[in-house]
């Protein structure tokens, strides 16, 4: 079995987030369509659950959108009550789509190398979750 390496999500995808009631969604689009499989394998509901911890209280869904090489993540109960009753400054969850790009995600090294996914760390400020998993 090939080695797993942890890389910043920003190496693999770009994203945008927004609110729907007390849920927010994050769309993550692979920089190259052919990286979708890697993206799907690395950003799982389990990983998102570990990243968000009790900041998200409801079910987490992840759906692929093969036409554009993306996944859509829906995080229910993630806005502290929704835009109007949340006490958080970013009550609409606008920032989550960018702050998650600093998360490190596990990828299969061989597969990533074959498809040209950069394995470098672009920034010093990413939090590696490999010790949690």
């Amino acid at each position: 079995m090939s080695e797993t390496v942890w890389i910043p999500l920003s190496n693999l995808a770009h994203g945008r987030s927004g609110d729907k009631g007390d849920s927010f969604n994050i769309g993550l689009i692979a920089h190259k369509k052919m990286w979708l499989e890697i993206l799907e394998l690395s950003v799982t509901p389990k990983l998102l659950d570990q990243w968000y911890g009790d900041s998200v209280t409801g079910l987490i869904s992840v759906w692929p959108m093969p036409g554009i090489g993306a996944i859509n993540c829906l995080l229910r109960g993630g806005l502290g009550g929704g835009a109007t009753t949340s006490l958080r400054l970013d009550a609409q969850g606008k920032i989550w789509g960018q702050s998650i790009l600093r998360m490190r995600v596990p990828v299969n090294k061989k597969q990533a190398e074959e498809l040209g996914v950069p394995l470098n760390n672009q920034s010093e400020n990413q939090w590696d979750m490999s010790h949690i998993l």
Partner: protein
Amino acid sequence: MAVSKSDVAVLFEEPIRIGSGGGFWGDRPLAPVDLLKSDDLDYMIIDYLAELTLSIMTKQKRRDPSSGWATDLELWLAAGGIDALRKKSVKLVTNAGGANPESCARMVLEQASKIGWHECKVAVISGDDILPRLDYLLANGEDLTHFETGEKLSDNGVEMMSANAYLGAGPIASALEIGADIIITGRVADASLLVGCMLHSAGWAYNAFQLGLTRESPVVDWAPQHITNPLDVLAQWTIAGHLIECGAQVSGGNYSNWGEVPNLATLTLPIAEIYLNSDVKITRGKAGGGMVNRKIVAEQLIYEIGDPEEYITPDVIVDMRNISIEDESEDVVIVKGAIGKPEPKSLKVSAAVEGGWFASSSLLVSGPHAIARANACDLALRARLSALEELEIHTEFIGSGVTLPKNIRQELFPLLNPPEIMLRWAVTSPNRRDITDFTQEVAPLVLTGPAGVGGYGARPKPRRQLQFWPTLISRKSVESLVKIELLTHLHISAESERFHFIRRRTRGFISRLQDELDEREWTRPLVKKLGWERNDSITDLTIQKEKEVEI
């Protein structure tokens, strides 16, 4: 005379060009004027209503019966917008009417009048507001259950502050068909603003009139016979509407690779071009900065959606999974592959119930160990308010990772030593007095907390929160009461009004039947307020009201 479906085949060689005037009430208010002046459009759409905007507008209307609509519309119409709409023959379709579309429409007529556009016709679409009928609806089988929490309205014992159903594209298309220049609606689903324009431009609405279909029929039934895949066509139009309804978010704003976008300062608004084969191209206004490419459009496609297999609008349910987005040329992206499924049985209702009291306040904390100082401030404030049992206090140490999830932030905390922290509190309580007590304890921390605390302001005023209450309602309960009214300042001559709706058909369309249609009789009441309302038999489109109304 009955007309068969095939008679109304409509060809268009040029695409229909629909511009977006902005993304929400609060977006750059004068940007629509720039787009109208720089580019040739058939329509401009503007979505002014976020999920809770209508609750705020409903509150405003209670205080002042002439308010409760998106006042930004007046700002840009008065700043050359109304003139540009008239000179360039662009039809405006917007939900700026909010909780009070009629007052909004009167403002539009005033603006038109000021530039001498006396024949301007403004359609008002209402009927989305179900609050006045709430008791009736509850007594007749609608339970208005909160679809996120499962709470029933009756269990809750709360007063609903506003409740608006999301209308679809049908009424917009009907209003365009009877000759409206500007359409002011209450709550209409964002993407339906564009779909309404296309139902008119592609001849579906005309076909529906000819076939005697009611406007609340599923709009898919309006398709002329030669359209073999009407649901997919509706799906493509819906996606076009979804892509441009957030304004510049699809022309370079809020883009992950923001550094690549030329001249954010002069970002232009987007334009959707819709082709006969239902291909959609997304591009942007000519005069200014910004960018449209595959990645930007993909970010917007996925914005604020749930399950991509079921993007639900009142007109159609769209399967987005196989939508493809490709770069065609500089600033032009082509979007294909949306699949349509029949419209939902229920309409979404955006409602609000009264919540608790709320205030927020912040202080700037600096010096060595800024985080520790901020923490001391927070502890002191909490201790001073500890007697208030129902007060909930939420503290954010801005600059220490509040945009990261809590567990990651806690890990990070000991590693940080920022030069300053913005300390922000937000509090809520069922008691207004608790909130006032909080507001009185913030500024004193400057004198009674650790050193290095500043940035205090006046005591904020406690305000009442609204709690969002999303629910569903059967289509029938809403759609049979949707009302379209056409308002104008002048009597219209019979000659100019005949087939007005055909002659004014937007640029780029050729109707095969135009000559034939011109020969047919078409009469309309010639009144100031053209009440155009369906009667309750649901099968017959008739003009019910003919009365002069003071405008």
